[in-house]
């Protein structure tokens, strides 16, 4: 079943159901499906959590996922990952699952539509100053925009805007290009090459989910930690004297 025709650039243009001005597009339906899968899995698995020696295989899976995300966050921020786990983990799991389900026939990744990726990028755009303000207070956070002099204020603002745009366009472009390459290859060499490109697309999807979450974490870490060095200047590195 080919839901998305070649000349349709985003799944927003596929309308599944319409009543008056209310439209259910393919993006909306698949986004709901992914949210339902994530929430149902989490609820069903965490219902029977145990700390004994015998754990179910689903609890094992969730423990691996959560502890991996925690360790990745810790490696970047070098602090307790508990604050950031909910936001970063949700971003990674949502994008990762929506890219991974591409192996299901008839499925169109909602991340291949610019509206979904723009919404995710705007979440990051809002989360970065809110983490920064909750850490340092609003005055200290705003002062960062005028470092080193006030001339740099427009450049800081432009940097925030362009990196949000880049975050959205990067994910959208990667996933949309995957859809288009598969469609074109199906028309040219329908037998074998689409499968190889599909396998490559799964890898690209996971890498993009990883990169989105890592970049969001890097932005948040830069907003929360930029001041610590000015308030508490780091002690100069002293050689520990471990001579070989």
């Amino acid at each position, binding site marked *: 079943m080919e839901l998305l025709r070649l000349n*349709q*650039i985003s799944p927003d243009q596929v309308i599944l159901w319409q009543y008056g001005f209310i439209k259910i597009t393919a993006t909306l339906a698949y986004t709901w499906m992914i949210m339902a899968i994530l929430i149902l899995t989490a609820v069903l698995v965490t219902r029977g959590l145990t700390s004994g020696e015998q754990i179910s295989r689903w609890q094992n899976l969730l423990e691996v996922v959560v502890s991996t995300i925690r360790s990745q966050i810790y490696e970047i921020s070098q602090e307790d990952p508990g604050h950031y786990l909910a936001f970063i983990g949700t971003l990674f799991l949502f994008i990762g699952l929506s890219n991974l389900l591409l192996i299901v026939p008839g499925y169109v990744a909602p991340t291949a539509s610019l509206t979904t990726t723009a919404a995710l990028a705007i979440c990051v755009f809002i989360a970065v100053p809110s983490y920064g303000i909750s850490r340092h207070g609003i005055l200290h956070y705003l002062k960062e925009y005028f470092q080193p002099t006030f001339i740099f204020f427009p450049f800081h603002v432009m940097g925030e805007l362009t990196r949000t745009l880049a975050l959205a366009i990067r994910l959208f*472009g990667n996933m949309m290009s995957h859809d*288009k390459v598969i469609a074109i290859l199906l028309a040219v060499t329908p037998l074998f090459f689409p499968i190889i490109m599909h396998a490559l697309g799964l890898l690209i999807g996971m890498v*993009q989910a990883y*990169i989105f979450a*890592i*970049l969001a974490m890097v932005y948040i870490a830069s907003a929360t930690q930029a001041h610590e060095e000015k308030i508490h200047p780091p002690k100069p590195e002293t050689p520990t004297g471990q001579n070989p």
Partner: protein
Amino acid sequence: MDTIAFVAFASIISAGLTMGLGALGPAIGEGMAVKQAVAAIAQQPDEKNTITRTLFVSLAMIESIAIYCFVISMILIFANPFWDHVISKGG
């Protein structure tokens, strides 16, 4: 050449040029970044995790330039606003 044919001609030519020239720079940049990262891993295998993570993030940054070009060429081919404008004017 009438206007519709000219718009189609210009769109297709510039879509190809955008993709070709836009892939050139990021390709060179990614090659240099991977070269340095492999050399760094060969020198310090203990820092493999940090180097790999930084490499992935910076590759994504570099690659986004090529992705911009790809999006522009896709818009020129599949969702061209000038084409729609000319068609609606010409009837």
